[in-house]
């Protein structure tokens, strides 16, 4: 186990005894990752922030649920976030505002470049919205977070062949949706 594992495990020990400062440190270490995953699975900022808050409050309220002997905290947290997002996604309509996408899109060196990136980002997000939530989650973890297949399998509580299937169907669906959007734009 690495330094990060020791740091997270020590913080979780302190959280078990009600140490709020330790909770803040743990949140600061992992909030960005949790929000990236939630944002990619859910699409909208408000929903993603709510899901991340719910995940961290679970950590605070029930710290005994995490067993350091069974894995690293980051993976366990990502699993909690993904599960919460999948639950929320089932009851969610795909709504992504252009404002949110504009905020998330990287600044380009020129206004034209920024507009181009924003356009690509909007189309990608619209295409992502056509995918089932589990495919989105697999793509978010494998491509968005750069995790390995076995890590994605652990976080989604499925086997590696199922991950491969989700990625394959996700990419195929994405390609088809983007092709359709390009045809609409051209028409």
């Amino acid at each position, binding site marked *: 186990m690495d330094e990060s594992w020791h740091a997270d495990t020590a913080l979780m020990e302190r959280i*078990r005894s*009600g140490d*709020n400062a330790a*909770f*803040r440190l743990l*949140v*600061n270490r992992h*909030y*960005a990752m949790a*929000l*990236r995953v939630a*944002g*990619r699975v859910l699409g909208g*900022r408000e929903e*993603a*922030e709510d899901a*991340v*808050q719910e995940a*961290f*409050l679970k950590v*605070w*309220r*029930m*710290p*005994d649920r995490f067993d350091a002997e069974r894995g690293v905290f980051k993976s366990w947290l990502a699993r909690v976030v993904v599960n919460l997002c999948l639950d929320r996604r089932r009851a969610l309509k795909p709504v992504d505002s252009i404002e*949110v*996408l504009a*905020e*998330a*899109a*990287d600044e380009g060196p020129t206004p034209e470049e920024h507009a181009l*990136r924003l356009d*690509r*980002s909007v189309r*990608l*997000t619209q295409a*992502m919205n056509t995918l089932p939530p589990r495919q989105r989650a697999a*793509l*978010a973890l*494998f*491509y*968005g977070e750069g995790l390995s*297949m076995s890590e994605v399998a652990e976080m989604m509580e499925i086997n590696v062949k199922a991950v*491969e*299937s989700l*990625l*394959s169907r996700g*990419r*195929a669906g*994405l*390609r088809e949706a*983007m092709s359709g959007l390009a045809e609409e734009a051209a028409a």
Partner: protein
Amino acid sequence: MMTRERAIEILEAFGANPERWPADERHAVEAAIAEDAGLQALADRERELDSRLMDWNALPPRAAAMEALFAAAEQTVQSNKVWSAPARRWNSWLAGGGAVALAAGIVAALMLAGQPATQAPVNTPAEVTDTAAITLVFSAEQSEGWL
């Protein structure tokens, strides 16, 4: 043995970057692509999708949302405290002499109830048995006051 079908499966699931392919199949897929124009075309198509996936932007954290989370945590009681707190209060009450006081109170009530009633009618002897005394002490009317 790498088949063409398996190479296609790998490209379509993991994209065109060999670093993302299963380690035990990587070299075989690379060799298969090198000698198959159809697989090379497929790799090019998947490389384009890989590039699009790079545009999948992530939301940057907002300080206000993190502060809202910290505030919510401060208002949230941890589950181990929810369950253990009543036990701790009960234990401390016992340790503080509460049990002794309760026992003394019950004994005193029994003794008082066991004395003959001064206002009892002459033709009705105030015979108070243990059972009657206990019934009196634990009557519903008195118990309501304790609870």
